[in-house]
């Protein structure tokens, strides 16, 4: 192995370990320092830690893709692991790091965005009373996300999955004195936890059947060079022989085979984390967190964990065609659904949140349309994940700069900021063009590849949705762009000025990434399955229409919001009437959920259970407590203090023992 000489390949664990150590330093040590020193140190320590992790991640990517250059089958390496739990001979769980194309890709994305967000936050959060706490949680998140990305088995991934959920909860509720932030953090946690219940059930199912298979399959796995493999390892679960055995199982549940059922359950977890319809309701509310947090967690990294999970287990999903169909339909529907809502929102962060939902839908259905024989969608999905991370983080950080300047989230309070904030304007324009899919920016290439994959797979309907959503995306993104930068200045935006340099550097860096990321030869780096095929170039038969709808969307936005002013958009909203209101109210999904939980679950299930608990259970407990005390008091009254009594008990006891012995020895 070449990797023996490479320092970084043997020490990949450093990449998650550095943010973790920094998290511990901040959380245990620096928090005890005086406030002023605490603030000075925490930002520097946290940012440096993540930057050094980023440097290592780039080094790793360099080494790894040189070890396996284009055209060479890329091996998944586990350069470092140790046994964490051993239940039985055939059931153990390791903790380790997995190095393969998608984990390297994600490490690069996570550390890049995270380090830039850290840098940005030193300016954005300046003077906040919770400054040190903020960086502590941000480091915890970075560690958890990296741990999730490098998980070689599904159990470690589940643990880190919950850790990112917990850090997301902590950061959404960062302004915990605001009731809306608290309820948003609770909502995010509860919805994703509910989804994770499915994930856990899926893990347990897979673990149970995998463990049953393990003894019979292990010898041939060992023979094929997979030594030290455990039932929960991805290497085991995605092994063709194991999947064949899974497929052959006759156990079914509600008409679904074991494999399909567990994959659907695992996808439930993925859908929760990636906010797929109908579990999308938490993500718009999660915008209550500080804006850099939205950029890092709720746009670029954590929300793609669901996509990553599906990609990680892609061979298994592919083996169970039904589960993959679910992925495709849910993804495509979410892409359309969220894009439509995005057109009507006034809060800039909410528009971006719905656009994130929509783009995640793209990634999901890209996975859904691919198969082991036609894996273009897999590559396209990872490509889009890669490019989206940069331009969406840039959009959020740009939005943060705007909010910082005008102290309002509403796009109508902004306006005329193009001249006042030139750098922000330029970078946000680049990102907006990228997400709209304009050549030659990053979004164009990845979106084009997704659409090609959808068309080639034969799912024409999904392709049509993808094309339509591309147009809608261009419309709503330029809607906020025109209103915020070109519109009439409001009294909020009159005194706006450009953001400090620490916030501008990340914007510029991300803008460079947004321009350049599209030229990364992703097909050479990330691929799966049989056709290793090189870069297929731009398919103008698809790119042409997609560019056309993007241009149409932009023109319509210009027509509505620049040429027409406020009256024309108001007139259109009035003409649409109820339809507009329904969309603006996000199809009333929050209200439907509230109705189900409050009116049905609480009233007909929770209230009776609570009554039973208060009266029957507590009553029983109180009764047993009362009985115990009463018998204690009764027993205490036998302690008369009289020696005669005690003597009588003694003699009586001896006689009883004699009788008892008589009975038992007879």
């Amino acid at each position, binding site marked *: 192995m070449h990797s023996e000489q490479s320092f970084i390949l043997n020490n990949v664990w450093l990449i998650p370990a550095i943010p973790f150590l920094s998290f511990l330093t901040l959380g245990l040590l620096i928090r005890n320092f005086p406030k002023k020193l605490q603030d000075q140190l925490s930002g520097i320590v946290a940012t440096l830690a993540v930057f050094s992790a980023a440097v290592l991640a780039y080094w790793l990517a360099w080494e790894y893709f040189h070890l396996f250059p284009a055209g060479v089958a890329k091996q998944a390496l586990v350069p470092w692991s140790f046994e964490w739990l051993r239940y039985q001979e055939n059931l153990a769980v390791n903790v380790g790091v997995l190095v393969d194309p998608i984990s390297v890709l994600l490490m690069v994305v996570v550390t890049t965005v995270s380090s830039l967000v850290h840098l940005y936050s030193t300016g954005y959060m300046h003077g906040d009373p919770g400054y040190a706490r903020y960086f502590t949680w941000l480091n915890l998140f970075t560690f958890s996300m990296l741990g999730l990305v490098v998980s070689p088995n599904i159990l470690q991934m589940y643990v880190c999955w919950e850790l990112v959920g917990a850090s997301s909860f902590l950061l959404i509720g960062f302004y915990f004195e605001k009731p809306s932030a608290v309820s948003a953090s609770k909502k995010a946690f509860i919805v994703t936890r509910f989804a994770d219940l499915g994930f856990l059930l899926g893990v347990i199912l897979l673990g149970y059947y995998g463990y049953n298979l393990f003894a019979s399959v292990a010898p041939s796995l060992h023979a094929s060079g997979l030594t030290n493999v455990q039932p929960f390892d991805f290497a085991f679960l995605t092994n063709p022989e194991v999947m064949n055995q899974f497929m052959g199982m006759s156990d079914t549940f509600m008409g679904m085979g074991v494999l399909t059922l567990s994959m659907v359950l695992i996808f439930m977890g993925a859908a929760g984390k990636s906010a797929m319809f109908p579990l999308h309701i938490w993500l718009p509310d999660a915008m209550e967190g500080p804006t850099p947090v939205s950029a890092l967690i709720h746009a670029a990294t954590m929300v793609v964990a669901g996509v990553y999970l599906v990609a990680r287990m892609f061979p298994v999903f592919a083996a169970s065609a039904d589960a993959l169909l679910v992925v495709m339909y849910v993804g495509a529907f979410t892409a359309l659904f969220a894009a439509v809502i995005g057109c009507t929102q006034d809060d800039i962060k909410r528009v971006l949140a719905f656009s994130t939902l929509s783009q995640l839908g793209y990634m999901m259905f890209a996975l859904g349309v691919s198969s082991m024989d036609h894996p273009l969608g897999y590559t396209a999905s990872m490509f889009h994940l890669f490019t989206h991370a940069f331009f969406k983080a840039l959009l959020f950080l740009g939005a943060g700069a705007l909010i910082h300047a005008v102290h309002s989230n509403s796009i109508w309070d902004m306006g005329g900021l193009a001249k006042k904030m030139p750098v922000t304007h330029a970078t946000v324009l680049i990102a907006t063009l990228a997400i709209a899919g304009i050549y030659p920016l990053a979004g164009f290439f990845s979106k084009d590849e997704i659409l090609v994959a959808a068309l080639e797979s034969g799912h024409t309907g999904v392709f049509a949705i993808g094309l339509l959503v591309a147009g809608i995306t261009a419309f709503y993104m330029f809607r906020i762009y025109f209103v915020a930068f070109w519109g009439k200045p409001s009294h909020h935006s009159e005194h706006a000025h450009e953001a400090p340099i620490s916030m501008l550097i990340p914007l510029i860096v991300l803008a460079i990434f947004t321009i350049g990321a599209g030229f990364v030869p992703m097909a050479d780096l990330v691929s799966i399955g049989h056709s290793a095929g090189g870069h297929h170039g731009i398919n103008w038969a698809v790119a042409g229409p997609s560019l056309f709808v993007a241009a149409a969307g932009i023109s319509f936005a210009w027509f509505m919001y620049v040429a027409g002013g406020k009256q024309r958009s108001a007139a259109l909203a009035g003409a649409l009437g109820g339809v507009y209101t329904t969309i603006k109210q996000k199809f009333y999904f929050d209200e439907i959920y509230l109705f189900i939980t409050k009116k049905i679950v609480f009233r007909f299930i929770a209230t009776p259970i609570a009554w039973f608990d208060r009266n029957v259970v507590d009553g029983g407990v109180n009764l047993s*407590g009362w009985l*115990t*005390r009463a*018998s*204690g*008091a009764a*027993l*205490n009254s*036998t*302690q008369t*203090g009289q*020696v005669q*009594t*005690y*003597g009588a*008990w*003694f*003699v*009586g*006891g*001896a*006689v*009883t*023992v*004699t009788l*008892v*012995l*008589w009975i*038992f*020895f007879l």
Partner: protein
Amino acid sequence: MLMLPELTIIGTAFLLIIVDLFLHEHRKAVLGGIAMAGVLLALGFTIGMMPQSGELFGGRFAVDSVTWWFKLLFLLASLITLAISIDLLDGRIDAKHMALQARGEYYAIMLFSLAGAMYLASARDLVTLYVSLELATIPLYILTAWKRDTLSSESGLKYVILGALASAFLLYGLGLMFGLTGEMNLEAIGRSVTPSPTFWLAAAMVTAGISFKLTLFPFHMWAAEVYQGAPAPVTAYLSVASKAAGLALMFQVFYRMMGHQLMAWAWPLAILAALTMTVGNLAAIVQNNIKRFMAFSAISQAGYLILGFLGNSDEGIPSMLYYMLVYILTNLAAFAVIVWYSNQTGRERIEEYRGLARVNPLVALAMMIALFSLAGIPPLSGFVGKFFLFSIASKAGFHWLVAVAAVNSTISLYYYLRIIRQMYIEPVGQETRALSISPVLAVTLAITTLATGAIGIIPMVYETVSAQTISWFLPFIH
């Protein structure tokens, strides 16, 4: 040479009496040091000689692995008890009315009792067994009445009367055993005895005598008043050393003399255990005096302890010895706090521990750890000890008894928490102030508390006990 630890203890006791005569009053503080040094020396001899086996005086005095462990337990219990007695006897206390007199005799008499317990573990014939038992017990009557106030004298007298009754039962039982077999040697009796009505009577009388020492129901009644009336360090000694002596006696009788009938004993012992732990726990709930409370707590602990006799699993012996070790350390940690609190304030009621955690947080923490260990909260050693005992009962098929024991543990948690609630949750009383703690007591408390946590986590302790004693009883049951 095998008797070196016992001889050291007796020598120290006589030395104390003689030196006491010639010392000026203000020099007498040295006596406590001499006593502890003697016990430490004996402890050193014991650790140096264990686990070799051998015998003296034609087999009347013998040592083997279990014997050494018992001696180790007695010496450890005495050492810690001496350490928590010293302040009271030297008068380094704030509550002057609690003071005890005549420290030379106090130490000497405690050491005589210790020597008796050690001989008890080594005795191999009926006479030696009985004489050493009396040597262990009679000094305790004296120590109980040491304070000579109403309560102390009354409890001493009750203890003598009931102790004499128990002794009489035991002696009659042993006499009948001799009559049945014509043998004096314990193992010879075990080999030749056969079940008969007389044997049942003898067994029941011996059991009554043992149960008195171990405070098993319904022979436990004396404990409440004696524990309450005796000076606090004596109560501590009674609750651990005397109980360990009872266990040693039970080992002698049940394994050496009745080992062949052990399986038939399972049900009567299970009933005895269930009743003892239930009665002890229920009565403990309603107690207000902390020493009386500890009496019932100790009664319930004895109920758990004898679970180790069930079945013929070879892990019973190490489980009981380990639990005794845990119990000694834990209970003495709790008693160190009780002794200290009564030394400094003269208070013994549970409500009077109110707010202790605010004024003496470390002491309250130690008390809480000790009480949690007694209740069996993981990862403290009390949990590990209980776990082993419960698993013995489970292996012997007594699942109902494990359920009873588990329910009892829950009840016990309730009353242990009562004290913790007083210390941590109830507001501080008006005139409560931080109390000083002497170095000896502080060190003792620290060591016992740390040990309470440590020996539950470090597997070496149980493994050593187990490795040395696991097959000890095989000769007696086959």
